[in-house]
C-alpha cells in the first residue's frame, strides 16, 4: 500500500511474491485462452488458432442454459433465505441474553466449519429418511445451511458495533418496531447485509460438494462442468462457461469487499 518507499523490499522478495501471484492466477488465464482455441478434443498448447465460434456454440446449447438457470435460481433463493434467517439470528444473539445463546451461535456457524461432504451426506440421508424427493428445493436447503453463516457473521459483527441504545432511542422518540427497523436498524446494517448476501450468492453459485448430494437429476452449473470435462467433445464450451462463472462470481465478491470496507466508517461512529 505504501508508495513512499522507506521500507523497500529486496528484489528477490518481490520476484517471489510475483511468482506466487502468477502461480495462482495464470491457470485461470489459461482457461480463458482455451475458450477461444480452434482445437476441441484435447488441451493443446499453444492453441493452433483462435476462434469465437465456441461462444456461439455455447449460446445454442440448451443444457448450458438449464444449468445456468438452476444455478441462478438456487443462489438467489438460498441467499434470500439466508438474509432473513441470518439477520434474525444475528439480532437475537447480539441483542438479547437467553439460555443457550452461545450454543446457538456455535451451531449456526458449524455448517461452514464442517467439510461440505459431511453436510452433504447428512442432508442426503435426512432427505431420504423424511421421504423428501430431490428437487431444486433440496439443493436450496443444502445451500442455505452455509449461506446463513455468511450473512449471520456479517450481520452479527455489525450489530455488535452499533450501539444498542439506538433502538431504544428510536422507540423512545415514538417509532414502533417496524418504523425502527426501517429507519434505524436497516440503514445501520444494510451494507453488512449486502456484503453478506453477495458472498452467500457467490458461495452458492459455485458449490459442488453439497449440491452433488442434494440434487436429483438436475445439474447446477458447476456440476454440469464437472460432467462435461469427461467428454472429449466440444471441450472449449466448458471453458466458455468457466469464464462466465468467474466473471459472475468475481463481481459480487469485489462489490462485497468494497462495501464492507466503507462500512467501517458507516458503523464506526455509533457513539
Amino acid at each position: 500500500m505504501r508508495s513512499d518507499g522507506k521500507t523497500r523490499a529486496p528484489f528477490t522478495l518481490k520476484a517471489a511474491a510475483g511468482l506466487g501471484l502468477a502461480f495462482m492466477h495464470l491457470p485461470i488465464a489459461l482457461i480463458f485462452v482455451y475458450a477461444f482455441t480452434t482445437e476441441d478434443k484435447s488441451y493443446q498448447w499453444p492453441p493452433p488458432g483462435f476462434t469465437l465460434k465456441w461462444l456461439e456454440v455455447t449460446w445454442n446449447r440448451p443444457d448450458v442454459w438449464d444449468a445456468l438457470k438452476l444455478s441462478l435460481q438456487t443462489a438467489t433463493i438460498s441467499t434470500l433465505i439466508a438474509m432473513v434467517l441470518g439477520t434474525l439470528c444475528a439480532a437475537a444473539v447480539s441483542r438479547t441474553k437467553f439460555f443457550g445463546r452461545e450454543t446457538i451461535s456455535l451451531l449456526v456457524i458449524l455448517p461452514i466449519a464442517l467439510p461440505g461432504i459431511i453436510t452433504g451426506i447428512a442432508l442426503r440421508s435426512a432427505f431420504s429418511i423424511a421421504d423428501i424427493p430431490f428437487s431444486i428445493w433440496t439443493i436450496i436447503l443444502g445451500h442455505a445451511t452455509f449461506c446463513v453463516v455468511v450473512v449471520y457473521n456479517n450481520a452479527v459483527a455489525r450489530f455488535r458495533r452499533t450501539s444498542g441504545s439506538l433502538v431504544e432511542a428510536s422507540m423512545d422518540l415514538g417509532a414502533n418496531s417496524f418504523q425502527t427497523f426501517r429507519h434505524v436498524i436497516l440503514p445501520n446494517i444494510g451494507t453488512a447485509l449486502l456484503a453478506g448476501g453477495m458472498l452467500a450468492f457467490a458461495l452458492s453459485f459455485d458449490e459442488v460438494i453439497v449440491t452433488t448430494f442434494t440434487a436429483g437429476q438436475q445439474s447446477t452449473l458447476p456440476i454440469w462442468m464437472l460432467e462435461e470435462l469427461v467428454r472429449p467433445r466440444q471441450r472449449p464450451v466448458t471453458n466458455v462457461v468457466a469464464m462466465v462463472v468467474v466473471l459472475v462470481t468475481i463481481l459480487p465478491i469485489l462489490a462485497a469487499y468494497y462495501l464492507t470496507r466503507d462500512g467501517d466508517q458507516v458503523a464506526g461512529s455509533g457513539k
Partner: protein
Amino acid sequence: MKQAILITSHHHPFKTSATRHFPCISEVRPYAGGLQTTGFSMTTAVSFSKVSRHFGTVRAVDDVDLSIAEGEFFAMLGPSGSGKTTCLRLIAGFEQPTAGHIEIFGTKVENVPPYRRNVNTVFQDYALFPHMNIIDNVAYGLMIQGMGKTERHAAANEALELVALPGYGDRRPGQLSGGQRQRVALARALVNKPKVLLLDEPLGALDLKLREQMQEELKTLQRKLGITFVFVTHDQGEALSMADRVAVFNDGKIQQIGSPQDIYQRPQSRFVADFVGSSNVLEPAFVKQLTGTESYASLRPEAIRIGQPDGHSATVIGSSYLGGTTRVGLALGDMRINALIPADQAVPENGTTVQINWQADELHLMGGKP
C-alpha cells in the same frame, strides 16, 4: 396511537410558526425553592406505588414508592447498581415492573410501550443515529409523527438554537464533540415537547468544566420550559446543585427523599450521610454523652472547628490540601472523622492533639437507623 399523535400535534406549538415554541426568558415563572414552598402545580407527573423490578434473584428496584410533581426537577442519586437507572427505564417503558404500578399523569402505563408514552429520554451515550445528520436526528420524532419535511426541519432548527447549536444541522454525529452531541440529544428529546424528560447520567462523559456549564444550562432550560425533568446521577454535587428534590437510592430502595438541603444537612441514615458529601457518622455511645440519646448522628466536616479553647480532644492523623479547603483527618476516641477547614487557616501538625467543637444544632440524630 392515532389519538396520541393527534393530541401531540394539536399541542405542538411548532405547528403555528407565528408563536415561538419555547417561552422566552421573560415568561419564566419564578422559581420556588422546593416542594414545601409550593410553586409546583399539584398535578403528579410520575408516581410509583410499591414498584419492584427483579431480574432473577437481583432486586434492581425493590418496593419503591415515589411521586414526582409536574414541573419538578427531580434527581435520582445513588451508586451504580442502586436501581436509579432501572427506575428511569421503568418510566420510559424499556422495563416492566415485576410488581406495583406506575402512573404517568394519572394513567397507568403497565402495558403502554415506550413509543406511546409522552416521555423522552436523553441517553447516557446520547444514542444519536450515526447514519443521519444532526437535523434529521433532531427531527426524527416529528418525522415518525408524520410531520412534513419543511415543518419538522424548522422545528428542529429552533430546538438546535435552544441548545445553542444553530447551523449544525448538516453535520454528522461523528463530527461533533461530546458536549455538542449531548446538546443534540437534548434537542432531539425536547423537540417532541415531552411531558416528562428523562436524563440518564447525561453529563457523565463530559469533562469537569463543561459539566458545570451544562448543569447550569440544564437547570435554566428546565425552569424556562417548565417540563418535568427526572435526572439520574451518581454525582451528589450534581444532584444537590440542580434538583428541587433528590431521592437517594441504595440496593434498589429509596433511602431518603427530600430537598437538597434536607438530604445534605439532615441525612436519615448512615448510607446517606456517607454517600452525600461524606458526613461524619458519630457512634451512639459518644452521642449519648453529648445529647443523652443513644443514636447514630451525622456531623458535616465543615461544621467542625479546630483549635478551640474548649471542646473535645482529638488527634490529628493526616491532612490533604483540596484547593479552597484543607481536609483534616482526626481521631476522636475510637472514631475517625474528617474536618474541612479554610485553606488560609493553619493546618495542625500530624500527631498533635487539638480541641475541636461544633454548634450543637449541627449534630443530627439519625434515629434508630445505623
